[in-house]
């Protein structure tokens, strides 16, 4: 799949993710650090948004705020019409479980659960499927990412690429509308990274909204839109046609 086939025009005029002047300040011994400095961002359904920037630009912080893994200092965050900024950690967790799947650079798999159990875990928490359905769905997802034959193994027995595929399968467990990936290819070689990005593109083509953080320019070009962060601000936006926002 390449960018030319992506329909960048949102099918739903309402943004799926809507950020209004989001600020995040970290306080430490050395003083306060403003990681996000008034971010305004809209992400529409079906978009494959890539977030780039140098180290310390605020990419991961932005992703954490959007997914509810962290709370903003100020500003509004709307996800699928729900005011995430007003939700407590519990409700944010539940929203995340149902609406979002998160993929991390270091995979973050639970080492004492098998491949299959890692995929089932989010379904267990969300309690949307019966036990039998959870297992069937997990096997299906593992098939989709081409590692079903490793279902009974522990994550440590898989290669880096296979672990990231597993992480993607886990992220898809509850059929989320939004898939968020923070440096998903950071720990992978180029061939494996390409394969992983292919999966993300497929998912985007299926109508899911994909939000990916990367500092790899080649990978960044695979998205339908790219924003660049610098010192906590969006300094550049680029759509697939090549025109600037």
């Amino acid at each position, binding site marked *: 799949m390449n960018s030319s086939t992506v329909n960048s025009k949102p099918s739903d005029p309402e943004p799926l993710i809507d950020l209004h002047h989001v600020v995040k300040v970290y306080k430490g011994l050395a003083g306060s650090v403003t990681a996000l400095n008034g971010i305004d961002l809209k992400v529409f359904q079906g978009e494959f948004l890539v977030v780039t920037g140098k180290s310390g630009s605020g990419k991961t912080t932005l992703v*954490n705020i959007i997914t509810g*893994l962290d709370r903003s200092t100020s500003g509004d965050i709307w996800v699928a019409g729900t005011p995430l900024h007003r939700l407590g950690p519990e409700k944010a967790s539940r929203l995340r479980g149902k609406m979002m799947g998160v993929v991390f650079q270091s995979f973050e798999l639970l080492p004492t659960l098998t491949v299959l*159990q890692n995929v089932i*875990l989010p379904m267990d*928490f969300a309690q949307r499927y019966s036990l039998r359905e959870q297992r069937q769905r997990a096997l299906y997802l593992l098939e989709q990412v081409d590692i079903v034959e490793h279902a009974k193994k522990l994550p440590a027995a898989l290669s880096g690429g296979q672990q990231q595929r597993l992480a993607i399968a886990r992220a898809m467990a509850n059929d989320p509308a939004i898939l968020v990936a923070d440096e998903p290819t950071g720990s992978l070689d180029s061939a494996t990274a390409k394969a992983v990005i292919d999966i993300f593109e497929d998912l985007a083509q299926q109508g899911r909204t994909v939000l990916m953080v990367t500092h790899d320019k080649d990978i960044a070009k695979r998205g339908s839109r790219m924003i660049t962060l610098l010192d906590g601000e969006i300094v550049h936006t680029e759509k697939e046609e090549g025109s600037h926002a």
Partner: protein
Amino acid sequence: MLKPRWYKVINDLFGNKTRTVLIVLSMAVGLFAIGIILSARSILSEGLTQSFASIAPSSGTVRTAEPFDEDFLESVRSMDAVQQADARRSITARVEVRPGEWKNITIFVFADYDDIRVNKVASQDGAWPPPEREILIERAALSVIDAQVGNIILVKFPNDTQREMRIAGAAYDPAQLPAQLDGTPYGYITFDTLEWFGEDYGFNELHVIATNPEDKDWAQQVVNRVKDKAEKSGYTIPLSMTAEPGQLPMDDVLQGILLLMGFLGVLSLFLSIFLVVNTVSALLAQQKRQIGVMKAVGGSTVQILGMYLVMVISYGVLALLVAIPLGMQGARALSQTLAVYFNFDLLSMDIPVSAILLQIVIGLVLPVLASLLPFITSLRISAAEAMSTYTMGKGRFGKNWIDRLLSGSNLWFARKASIRSILLSVRNTFRNKSRLALTLITLTLGSATFISVFNVRASLTSTVNDMIQWFNCDAILTFDRPYRSEKVQQEALTVPGITDTDIWLQFSARRVRPDKSESGMMYMFAPTIGDSSLIRSPAIAEGRWLLPDDDNAVVVPSALFQDEPDLKVGKEIVLKVYGKEHSFKIVGTYVGTAFGTIIYSNYSYVAKVTDRVGEADALMVRTQAQDAASVKAESNALEEHLERTGVGVSTVSTLQNERAEAEVIFDAIVSLLLVMAVLLALVGGLGLMGTMSINVLERTREIGVLRAIGAPNRGVAQVFILEGIAIGLLSWLMGSLLAIPMSHGLNQALGGAMMGVSLTYSYSMPGLWLWLVIVIFLSALASFIPARNASRLTVREVLAYE
């Protein structure tokens, strides 16, 4: 099929076996200690009471100077207030335990050994009843006279008749003070054997059970009625006493032990709580990242909390599986040991269900409650923070005054000496202050308890010293009847090695209360005051000792005020002596045990009011030699000389013997304390091991950096071992200070239970230094394994660690 979250719990439990074993052991040790204490307390409290009740214990005893027969016994049995009565002959004889060395022995004579109705005696081993011209020895007394069943012993009666007798068997007589504690052996013969010794037939002791034996006041009235009946029948009553209902001999020692066990049980509980909190905090620290992941994939706090609560409960269950059976065995062993000590057979060793249930509740509920705070604290962290890639610290070190104290220009000497690794260890110790605090609390409590045990032991020794140091003599002889004091002293001084002598009067007395009721039997000792250097003031708890010009002054034991609460220093006390009432004034109390109430008064006054001027009931002597063997030899020589001059000697006691007997009583308590101290030290050590393991795990990346910049394996291990030792030393320091009030509390509790007053405080320096050595060893050991594991990881492994 289980849900994956429960698979995670199971896999976490059994996947890391070392951690699971450590956590389970930490919980199990505390539960084990609690189980032993709860169960042993229950077995002892109930079992000993049942055992004692089974012997038909007497409400009181009346001794007559003249022998009486079955007719009088039957008349006592027919009294309405008497439920049951029995009679025996009681004789204080001497037995030769080694050539030339004699010991007092109390010999009982029963008419029918198969029909003993009160204070029952039973067969333990060998013949029953004792055959003619043979003797049974109480089972606990065999070791006291260094003999066995079948041995031949030489027994001498007060009428000077000596006979060789075979020990035909052992008897079990739990109504007597345990011989190994009292130092007095007991023997049992028939009236035929008594006749063989040249003594007449007849009883001289009545043992009665009142109709309502649980009522002590009533029991005392009944005993007084029996005494009055005996006196009206023409018998002289030199002794009568009322027993505490249901209380076995040495009950106050037992109560002291039970009190200690209760205290140690509570302490174990607290230590367990701290250990669990520390362990769970450490566990959650290890699992922080995974908790973040579970939150990231949609896990709610309640769901995640549920998982870890189940894990903690599982640890509790595993700990209970270890602790309950071991605790039961330990409780039985401890109970049996104490029963042997008190010379009792426990009728039941059943572990009370309540103790098991309480252990279960403590084992399951307490870890959950203790874990809630660390759970809630850790679950409050955002998922992002929980999953943040581990760095070599969060940059918080250096913020507070402790950190600043340990760094920078304060440590100018570090520039001159090669102590960087020590500095690193010391600073590392203070990086996680909350974990350090929890570990320190556990270790400090263990330290304080261990040191306090030694302090209590030293205090017991000081107390015994205080109790006998007022006897500035080497031996005390009591006579079978009063003799002229001048004669016995003159004769004593003719014996080689005897350098000084003094005498006293001793007789039984009873307090007459304002309502005219009488107390149980007490003893009055009337030494000469001021004329002799052989008696000094005892440790005075309140008021003063006697003065040479005192007339009706008395000094009473501190424990008396527990039984007679209306008395106090400065108040009058009316004592009935030889049937007449005399008024005295209490001028002071002394530190004394509750083993018999002994009241001291001035010889000159007491002899005058009792018409006994110039008489002596006992003789104190000082010997030239001071070693135990020589004192004993000279005392024996003195006894033989006095016997030859017609002075009948009932008992001979050396002060070394008295000290040894007093210390034997306390030894059981000290042994128990030591066992518990070792357990608590173990709990503390496990806590430290857990902390150090987690410290190593958390700083694995840091270890990689140390190795990457050239630190050798030994250097890496050294940092952690020194850190462990630093924690141990801190706990020793804090524990040595906490031991001061803790020891005071223990002294107060123990002394109060046994003597009505605190033990004489003493701080044991040997105990302090011994614990220092132990804690350094424990700390190094607790840190060694995690440190060694850390030093063995490759640099690549640790830097790739997530």
